[in-house]
C-alpha cells in the first residue's frame, strides 16, 4: 500500500496519532537539550560528514584493510553480495557450530535481509533481545523505528502481549514490572544460547575491530556468553581510524535519545579465549547507491533515528506507514534505490521542510535527496494521468503570461461564484477538511495596472 493510504489509516485514530507524535517529539526535545550543550556541535557534524565522505571515496581499500586486521585478530571474515547470501553464510556458521538457539541484538541489517524467517525455517530459534525488538517479535510485526522499535505500541498492548507469551501478571502496563519480567525471560535465553548475532555500529579499518552500542547490555550478554559471535555489517559501517570513534560516539547517542553516550559502547577486537568470532560484510545494494552521486551521501547514515523523531510526517503516520525496513526520511532516500516502484510514494511523504537535514549528525542532505528522487520517480514509474497532465498544463500556463492571466481570472471567478458544495466536492482533496480562499475580484496585476493608469 502507498504511504498516503497507510498514513490515512493511521490517522483514523487521532488520539493515537497525538500520543505517537508527542512520544517522538519528546525524544527530539531531549536531543535538543543535549546537543545545545555541546561546544563545537556543528564542527562535530561537519567532521562526521567529512570522515564518512572520505571513507566512501576510498571504501574498497578501507574494507581490505579492515579485513586484513580482523583476520590478524583471529576473526573470520565473510562477504555477502546480497541478503540471501548473508542469510546463507549465517546459517552455515550456525550449522557448523551446531547452534540451535540464537540470541540477536539489534541489527537493522538482519531485518533488511529477513534473517529471522530464514533461520526459523530450519528450526533455529532466533530471539531478539533488545526489549523493543522482542516486543515487536512477539507481536509478529516489523520494528516501526530503528532506535525505538516498539514506539508504536502503548504499554497496555505490551502488557497483554507479555501476558500471552511470557505468562506475566496483568499489571496495568507498568513499564518497570514489564521490563523486569523481560529481563528474567531473556536472561534464560542468554544463558542457553549457542550463538549470538549482533549488528555493528562502527568497523575500524585501522584495527579490524567493531563497536556495538546498546543501552540494555543485550549485545554484550549475548556475545560474551555464547561460544560463537557473528557480527553483521553493511559495507558502509567502516571508519578509517579508532580516533574517529571520538567524533561518532559523541554524535550518535545525543542525536538518538539525548543521552551523552549509550550505556555500553563495546569494542570487539579479538575473540575471547576458546570461542569464535565471525564478521559478515554485506553489500545488498549499497555499492549501487554509491554509484549515484546525488544519493551516495545516504550511506553516511549512522542509524541514530533523529530524522524520524524530528519528521512531522513520520510522527503522525507511524513507522509502518513507510512499509520499508528503514522508515522515515532516511528510509525514504534509501529505499527507492532498492526498489523504485515499490517505494515510489516515499519521497513524496515529505513537505521538504528540511528538519531532517538539519538534525542529521552526519549532515546528509536528506530533503534535497527527497526532491531529487521525486524527479526520477515521475520519469521512471507510472504516474496518475491526472497528475501528469495537470503538471504539463500548469507548466504551459506559467510559461506564457497571457495564458496565466486568463486562467487566473477563471479561477478567481469560480472561487467567488461556485457553491461550496461544488468547490469542496470529492475530487478536491483540499476541501475535505479545509476551506479554499474566497476569490478576490481583482488580481494584483489588475490592481497594479489600475494604479499605474491613475498615476499617469
Amino acid at each position, binding site marked *: 500500500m502507498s504511504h498516503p493510504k497507510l498514513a490515512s489509516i493511521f*490517522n483514523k485514530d487521532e488520539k493515537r496519532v497525538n500520543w505517537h507524535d508527542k512520544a517522538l517529539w519528546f525524544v527530539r526535545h531531549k536531543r535538543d537539550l543535549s546537543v545545545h550543550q555541546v561546544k563545537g556541535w*556543528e564542527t562535530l557534524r561537519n567532521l562526521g560528514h567529512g570522515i564518512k565522505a572520505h571513507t566512501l571515496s576510498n571504501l574498497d581499500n578501507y574494507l581490505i584493510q579492515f579485513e586484513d586486521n580482523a583476520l590478524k585478530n583471529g576473526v573470520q571474515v565473510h562477504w555477502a553480495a546480497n541478503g540471501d547470501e548473508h542469510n546463507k553464510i549465517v546459517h552455515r556458521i550456525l550449522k557448523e557450530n551446531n547452534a540451535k538457539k540464537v540470541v540477536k541484538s539489534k541489527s537493522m541489517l538482519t531485518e533488511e535481509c529477513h534473517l529471522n524467517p530464514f533461520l526459523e525455517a530450519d528450526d533455529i530459534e532466533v530471539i531478539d533481545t533488545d526489549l523493543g525488538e522482542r516486543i515487536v517479535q512477539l507481536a509478529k510485526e516489523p520494528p516501526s523505528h530503528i532506535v525505538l522499535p516498539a514506539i508504536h505500541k502503548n504499554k497496555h498492548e505490551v502488557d497483554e502481549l507479555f501476558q500471552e507469551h511470557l505468562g506475566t501478571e496483568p499489571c496495568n502496563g507498568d513499564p518497570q514490572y514489564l521490563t523486569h519480567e523481560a529481563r528474567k525471560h531473556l536472561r534464560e535465553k542468554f544463558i542457553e544460547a549457542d550463538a549470538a548475532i549482533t549488528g555493528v555500529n562502527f568497523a575500524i579499518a585501522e584495527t579490524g575491530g567493531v563497536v556495538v552500542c546498546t543501552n540494555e547490555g543485550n549485545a554484550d550478554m549475548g556475545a560474551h556468553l555464547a561460544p560463537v559471535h557473528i557480527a553483521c555489517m553493511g559495507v558502509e559501517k567502516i571508519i578509517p581510524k579508532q580516533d574517529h570513534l571520538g567524533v561518532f560516539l559523541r554524535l550518535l547517542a545525543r542525536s538518538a535519545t539525548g543521552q551523552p553516550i549509550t550505556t555500553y559502547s563495546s569494542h570487539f577486537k579479538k575473540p575471547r579465549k576458546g570461542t569464535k568470532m565471525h564478521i559478515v560484510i554485506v553489500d545488498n545494494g549499497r555499492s549501487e547507491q554509491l554509484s549515484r552521486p546525488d544519493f551516495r551521501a545516504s550511506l553516511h547514515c549512522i542509524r541514530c533515528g533523529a530524522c524520524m523523531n524530528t519528521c512531522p510526517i513520520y510522527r503522525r503516520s507511524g513507522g509502518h506507514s513507510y512499509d520499508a525496513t528503514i522508515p522515515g526520511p532516511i528510509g525514504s532516500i534509501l529505499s527507492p534505490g532498492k526498489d523504485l516502484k515499490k517505494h515510489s510514494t516515499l519521497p513524496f511523504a515529505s*513537505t521538504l521542510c528540511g528538519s531532517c537535514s538539519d538534525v542529521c549528525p552526519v549532515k546528509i542532505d536528506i530533503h534535497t535527496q527527497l526532491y531529487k528522487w521525486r*524527479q526520477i520517480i515521475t520519469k521512471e514509474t507510472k504516474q496518475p494521468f491526472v497528475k501528469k497532465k495537470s503538471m504539463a498544463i500548469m507548466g504551459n500556463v*506559467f510559461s506564457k503570461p497571457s495564458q496565466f492571466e486568463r486562467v487566473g481570472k477563471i479561477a478567481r471567478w469560480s472561487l467567488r461564484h461556485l457553491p461550496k458544495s461544488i468547490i469542496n466536492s470529492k475530487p478536491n482533496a483540499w476541501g475535505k477538511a*479545509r476551506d479554499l480562499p474566497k476569490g478576490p475580484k481583482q488580481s*494584483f496585476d489588475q490592481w*497594479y495596472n489600475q494604479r499605474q493608469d491613475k498615476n499617469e
Partner: protein
Amino acid sequence: MKVGLFIPCYINQLYPQVGIATLELLEKLNVEVTYPSGQTCCGQPMANSGYENESIGACNNFVSNFKDFDYIVTPSGSCAYHVKKHYNIINQTHDVKNVRNNIYELCDFIVNILKIKDVGASFPYKVGVHKSCHGLRGLRLGSCSEVVGERYSSLEDLLKEVKGTELMSLKRTDECCGFGGTFAVTEEAISVKMGKDKIQDHLNNGVEVITATDTSCLMHLEGLIARNKKPLKVLHIAEILNSQYFTKVPN
C-alpha cells in the same frame, strides 16, 4: 538600486492584498520598485511535485523578467528559495546566475539589505510567528531549533519594532505547518493533522494573529481555521509591517 518586485502566482490571483502591502511597504521605505508585467510563477509547484522539466518554461520566463535588477524582492521565502536552489536545471547564463544571486525574501531584504528594523508600523495584537520552512531552513532567515549556534530571526527583528504587537512564543517554535505544495492534497490526512496541531499550538499560547513569510502556509492554516471556526486570523507579515492600526479593529 534597481529593485524588481516578484509577486508569486497564487498571491497575484488569490491574495492581491499581500502584494499590495508588499509594494506599499517598500515604497514607504523609499525603495523604487518596478513590477515587471510579464511575470507568472517561479516554477516551484511543478518542480516539487517531481516535474522539474515542466517548470523550465516558468523558469525562463522568470529570468527574462528579472534579469536586469540589482535586487528581486518577493513576499515569499519559498519562491525565493526555489529560484536560488533549483534554478540549476536551466543553463547557467550570466542572467540566470544574476537572478539566483539577487533574489531576496521581503524581510531578508529589509533587514539585511536596507538595514532597517523599525518600519514604523502599528499593530496592536498578539502575534504568533509561523516560521515557514523554506525561509527558515532554506534561506536561513532565522536560526532553527535543530542547529546549534546563535539565535536570530529577521522576522522577529522586524515584528519586535511594530508598535503594539506582542510576540507570543510557541511550544514547537519551528515545526512545519503541513502545507508542502501538492503534499497538501496527496498526503491530505497528514497535511490536515499537521495544520491542526500547528493552529492548536498558536491557540494554546494566546495568539490572535498568525503571521508568516509565506501565504501558502497561511492559506492552508486559514482553510483549517475557517472550516473549524477557530478564533484566529492569519496575515502575511507584509500586511502587519504595512499596518497603521492604533487600536484593535472590532471583528
